[in-house]
Each structure stands twice: as C-alpha cells, then as structure tokens.
C-alpha cells in the first residue's frame, strides 16, 4: 500500500536523520593526561607563586569541579547544563585563557557591556583561583590560611605592614578607636 510505503520511508528518513544529527559525544580528557604539578605564579607579587600538586588533586576531585565544562566531563551544575551539557572538550583548559588577569580594567568592563553576553559575572584570574581553591578547602578541611599555600613576599610584608615592616611597640600603642 502506498501509505504504508510512505510511512516506512518517513520512518527510515527520520532514523537516518537522527543518526546523522546525533551529537557526537564530546571528547573527554583523562586525568592521566594532566601535568603532575602546575606552577601558578602569573600574578605573584604580594605572595609567592603556588606549586600546585595537580596529580594529588585529581585523586580527590573530579576534573569538572575545577575546570567546569572545559575538560569535556559531565557537567552537573544546573546553571551550566543549560548550555554546556554536551559542549565537549574545550580548546584550552588553562584558567587564564578564560579568566582575565586584568579584571575591572576599562577593557574588561567594556567587554562585559555586551548585552548578548551571559557570563557577565565571570571572575578574574585571581578571583577564579581563590574562589575555586578556598571554597573547596573550606568544605573539605584543606588549608585555608593565606600562607598555607603561598608565602608572603617582601612586597607583601610592606603592604600588610607585618614582619620586618610591622608597627614597632613604641609607635604602635593602644588605639582608642573613638
């Protein structure tokens, strides 16, 4: 019968089309591909850089916990899933490729004026590091003191007026506080 033939054709077309259009499962990085340690020092000024033990952290956390959707792993955050459920592995997984080190500069702020931009609230590089690390360390009992991860430099001691720049006993004195 004509109708049956048509139906078969239609079903076949849908099936083939479906297979063709089926999204290719995004490639996923393996933790084993990652470096053993990562030196995080591009912003080091008041504190020295961090020798980040990447290998150790891959044992206690999944890739997506820090790298979001970029490693191609399964995204669980409901806000991210909306767009990144199947976005697959990104071209880069390095923090600084997405999180700008000149956050709040005129340039950075004007880029965020784009009305089509969803990520208007993406932290800068320094914020991204600390929000990622500190938030997890607080939850899991990891180190949270500033100098637990990076020691203060001399420039830091000057700004924080501590160490060799600490207020001396004679000039300090009790502050009334009004």
């Amino acid at each position, binding site marked *: 019968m004509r109708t049956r033939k048509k139906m078969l054709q239609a079903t076949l077309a849908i099936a083939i089309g479906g297979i063709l259009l089926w999204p290719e499962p995004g490639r996923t990085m393996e933790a084993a591909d990652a470096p053993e340690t990562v030196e995080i020092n591009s912003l080091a000024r008041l504190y020295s850089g961090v020798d980040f033990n990447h290998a150790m952290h891959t044992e206690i956390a999944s890739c997506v916990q820090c790298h979001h959707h970029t490693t191609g792993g399964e995204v669980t955050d409901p*806000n991210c899933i909306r767009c990144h459920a199947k976005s697959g592995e990104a071209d880069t997984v390095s923090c600084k490729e997405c999180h700008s080190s000149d*956050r*709040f500069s005129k340039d950075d702020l004007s880029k965020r004026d784009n009305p089509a931009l969803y990520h208007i*609230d993406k932290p800068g590089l320094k914020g991204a590091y600390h929000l990622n690390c500190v938030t997890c360390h607080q939850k899991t009992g990891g180190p949270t003191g500033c100098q637990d991860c990076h020691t203060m430099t001399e420039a830091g001691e000057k700004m924080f007026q*501590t160490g060799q720049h600490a*207020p001396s006993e004679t*000039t300090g004195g009790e502050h*009334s*506080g009004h």
Partner: protein
Amino acid sequence: MKTTVSRRTFIKGGLAGTVVATVLPEKKSQAATFEGYPDGMGVLVDLTRCVGCRSCEAACNEEQKLPQPDKPFDDFSVFDEIHHGQKRRTDETRYTVVNRYDVPGLDHPLFRKIQCNHCQEPACLTSCFVNAYTKTPEGAVIYNPNVCVGCRTCMIACPFNIPTFKYSSAFNPRIMKCIFCYDTRLKEGRPPACVEACPQEALTFGKRNKLLEIGRQRIRETPDKYEDHIYGEHEVGGTAWMYLSSVPFDQVGFDTHVPKEPILNYVKDFLGIVPMVLTVWPALFAGFHLLATRKDWLKNKNEDTHEEE
C-alpha cells in the same frame, strides 16, 4: 510730613511676601527625582565570598597614605576587639574595616567590610552648609577639606556613621572618609585599591546598573546561597556600594531600618522654608516691632520737641 506705610498695608505686604516665598519653592528641586548618574560606578560586596583576610584594609591604608596601624594587617586578633561595646569602625586612621560576625546556626563566621557606601543622594552632602561634599558622575562622594569648617554635621547626618573627624588636627578641620579612591583611581576608570587587592573577588567593581544585574543573577542562579535582597539597591535612596548576604542582613550588622528613600526627602520641606524664614521673617517682625513701638516713639519725639521749645 513724609508718607509712611500704614500698618495694614505693611502687614498685608509682609504676609503676601511670606505666601509667595512659601509657594515659590514648590517648583520641585532636581534632587526630588534624581536617580543617580546613569554611568555611576559602584562595588558589589558579596559576604558569602569574604574570608576576612584584611587585604582590602592594607591596600586602602597604602593607597590613601593613612597612618601606620597599631597591629599588622595580617593580625586577625582585631576581629575580637570591642570598643565602647561596638566592633571596629572607620576612623581617622582607616577608611575601611572588616568585622567578623559569628552567626548562630552557621558553621563558619561571616565577614563584612564597611566603608563609605557612596549614596546616590548623600545625607552628608545635603547636611553640609559649605558644600564640602560632591557626588561625582563617576559615583564617588568626595570631600573638600579646604572649605570644611569642622561642624561635623555630616557625621550626624550619615545613616551609616562613616565620616569621622580628625581630632588630631582640630584647628585645621578635616573629615576622614573613604573617597572611592577618586583622585588616584576612579577618575581614570580604575577600581579602588581595596577591590584590586581582594583575592576572593568578594568586591565586584562596575557600573552600578550592571552590578544590580550581576547581583540578581547570583541570587537567581543560586537561591539557596543568598538572601533575596541587595542591600543598597533602595536603602536611603540607593547606594553605589551594595551588599549580598547569605543570612538576614541584620544578623551581620546592617541597619535594616534605614529608610528606602533619601534622607534628604525627610528634611527637604523644612529646608525649603529656611531661606524664607531667614529673609522675610526678620523684615516682617522688625516691621511689627517698629509699628508697635511707633506711638511711643512719636510721643517721645513730641515731648522732646516740646521740651526744646
């Protein structure tokens, strides 16, 4: 005899003048509808992010060349300090202060940074009779020490108790308060020193309108994390510095009873009468007095002339 104004005409004129003076200020001042400069900048402070590292305090001290503190900025014992029954506050040696709040039922403390909130319609500015304060189009409330007479009315007017007096230089009066790093940074479009120093990006710098969008996005996407309120969006008519919190704002030291409209609105009607009172009333009542004593004066004058004769 020269013509004199009759008592009736004088009173009529005086009253008419008073009425006119009262009616004239009815033309609304611009302040009544001012909603802030459209491109004014601000800072969104997210209490859920602050870890109390005091980097902002250190950066502020350095940027504003403030005096050496009593304790280093990496000394966290300051969070236990209580002065006159209160936590630390801003004073002539510090424009910003971070305080710790142990909220019942929360397994970790919260930290709140205080500084000038840079109101859209600042009460300090309104109260200052020498116009020492200016709200700049960039969003900062700045202060001019050259015209300040040291009356300290701004300290009383501020709903957040921010301006402080430099008691160490009372003869050269100077109010000390956060100026949003206006001279050194904001004027050039750069963020204040505290924002740049914050490791946690607990301080987000941007156009005030944009910050409201960001704040709402954070609340909308993580509703369990935040109180559904941006403190400073409407408080005292809106402030350039605004706050997000995970607990009710009164539990972390915020005054939740401040009005939702500018302080100015409460005193505007009264202040509108002041020029009239100062100009019309003296003439009016001096006239009353002269008229009331005119008979005596004429009598005395007549007596004097009689005596002379």
